[in-house]
């Protein structure tokens, strides 16, 4: 028998970690090897999957990062609008601006953002929203640039998170009160791991809406906000 199976496969019920894989010599069995490669391929594809901005309805914006290769190397450019896009925005009087951004996984945005947007608008009846902004090659801090130009009191960025092997389609939501260029991550609230197998989008919308209400009451977001849900990582 070339393949050595592990007699402790029952441990797999206790964790989603890749345990009790068995071995061929000292190496991973073929099926496990290829399952890993498939998960990695999906995560890689998610990073490169083109963002179909037209799947949404609103103002279409681009950052100073012109393509995916530039975006990955230059996080600073993904935090600023390109000049042509910047001209599309003008100051208004808005309670909040909702921003859909591709981040590191357009797949996540396509799968989770539509439900999230519908539910958020339902939850927050009576709020004055700026037109929905859809932005390509964007990092979290793009909300500062957009929010400041629109004079929105609160920016909510829905952005594709860094894909993991088990979750290539996880969305994050970042809330920034009084958005302006130079805000730090400590001044934001974050809800992460939004996907049906993680934090369900409908439930996530309720949580984000609640955070938005708290932010409006306190005129504040960030670590000092006691209802900060999850620290999260910055895309």
């Amino acid at each position, binding site marked *: 028998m070339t393949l050595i199976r*592990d*007699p*402790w496969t029952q*441990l*797999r019920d*206790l*964790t*989603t*970690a*890749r*345990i*009790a*894989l068995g*071995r061929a*010599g*000292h*190496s*991973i069995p073929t099926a*496990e090897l290829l399952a*890993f*490669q498939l*998960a*990695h391929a999906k*995560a*890689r594809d*998610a*990073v490169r999957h083109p963002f179909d901005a037209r799947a949404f309805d609103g103002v279409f914006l681009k950052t100073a990062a012109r393509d995916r290769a530039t975006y*990955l*190397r*230059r*996080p*600073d450019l993904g935090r600023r609008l390109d000049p042509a896009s910047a001209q599309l925005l003008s100051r208004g009087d808005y309670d909040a601006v909702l921003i859909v951004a591709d981040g*590191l996984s357009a797949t996540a945005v396509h799968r989770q953002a539509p439900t999230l947007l519908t539910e958020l608008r339902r939850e927050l009846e009576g709020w004055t929203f700026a037109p929905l902004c859809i932005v390509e090659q964007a990092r979290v801090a793009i909300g500062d640039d957009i929010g400041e130009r629109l004079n929105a009191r609160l920016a909510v960025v829905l952005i594709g998170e*860094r*894909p*993991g*092997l*088990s*979750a*290539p389609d996880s969305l994050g939501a970042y809330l920034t009160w009084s958005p302006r260029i130079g805000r730090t991550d400590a001044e934001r609230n974050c809800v992460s791991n939004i996907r049906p197998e993680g934090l369900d989008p409908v439930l996530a919308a309720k949580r984000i809406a609640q955070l938005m209400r708290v932010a409006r009451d306190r005129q504040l977001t960030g670590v000092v906000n006691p209802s900060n849900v999850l620290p999260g990582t910055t895309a």
Partner: protein
Amino acid sequence: MDLKTLLAKATPARSGDELAGIAAASAEERVRAQMQLADVPLKRFLAEPVIDYDSDEVTRLICDSHDAQAFAPIASLTVGEFREWLLDDETTGESLAAVSPGVTPEMAAAVSKVMRVQDLITVAAKIRVVTRFRDTIGLPGRLSTRLQPNHPTDDPRGIAASIVDGLLYASGDAVIGVNPAADDLATIETLLHMLDRIRAALDIPTQTCVLAHVTTQMDAIRRGAPVDLVFQSIAGTEAANRAFGINLALLDEAHAAARELSRGENIMYFETGQGSALSANAHHGVDQQTCEARAYAVARRYRPLLVNTVVGFIGPEYLFDGKQIARAGLEDHFCGKLLGLPMGCDICYTNHAEADQDDMDALLTMLGVAGCNYIMGVPGADDIMLNYQSTSFHDALYLRSLLRLRPAPEFEAWLERVGVPGKHLPPAFEKALQLA
């Protein structure tokens, strides 16, 4: 040209240095800078700190702890001559250990910039840094592993399942170390007690660690939790360490608290990685590899049991692809060993980097040849909490088998005693699961 500018222009291509705007503008400029750097006398590094002495405590640590006597044998050399001295057959591990307190991080970084991969491997392979806690790590012919049984919700049973799997694959002789998803004291204490129960029940000659922030671990010590190793991420500038929420005084305090537990000399565990200073906007125009070497000055102050660079975790804006990750891992291992540290490496990458398992296999093999003290053991190489790929239990078996390396001697004897590898799940292991 001042030293820090020269070092930045001479450093091998890194996306992080390009992002910082300090890299050479062309391939030729880079090699010309390397030629100029090769002619710099080592003494100049003592006279010209790359970050101001008055404004940075890491610089003060480097300058104030420099050992002039140890430096004497290499005091007349240039960077280029230092490379040749390191490679000289007459220069042994003992002579390298003797000069180590006289080598500053900037000297180590500088010479690495004019070394090829085989040079980095050749010199590092001469140096053994041996440390001890419940077992002995870093002996010739040995390769240890950190068992990393992370779980997205810190579920003790899930963590225990990964620990049992890892032990049955002969993993965990460097440390059984959990990265907690939550950083609150209650979670950390729960995990510390759970890890200690399992270790004690199976009588494993290894140590445990929960990699929370150092202040949380100090709280746990005060409350009597079973802390073996005190962990912290560290960086090479005072400002970058501030972003990690630490300074030398706090590390001194943590070290003192751990020493009071009377567990021996080597009681600290540090992690580092190129790019951390830049990502905290705290690099002072110094290239990321030099900043990384400066972190080793912080580490060596505490004679740690374990230090590892987490080389590919930070993302492609700092280390773009497999080639940059591989070279960075070998530079970090070389510089750490030269500065007297028990270096291991978290050979890893994220899904937005241009890297895959083949790149990790290559770096894994090279680090094995270079005599790396330990690597990570993550179930199937897939960390389901941190969402990145590291090395698997199988990867360590591969290195040990191909390079004829063995686990730490005490751990090896334990494996034999409990019958690992075996055909069944030993009853003691089944019982250990109930302790979670």
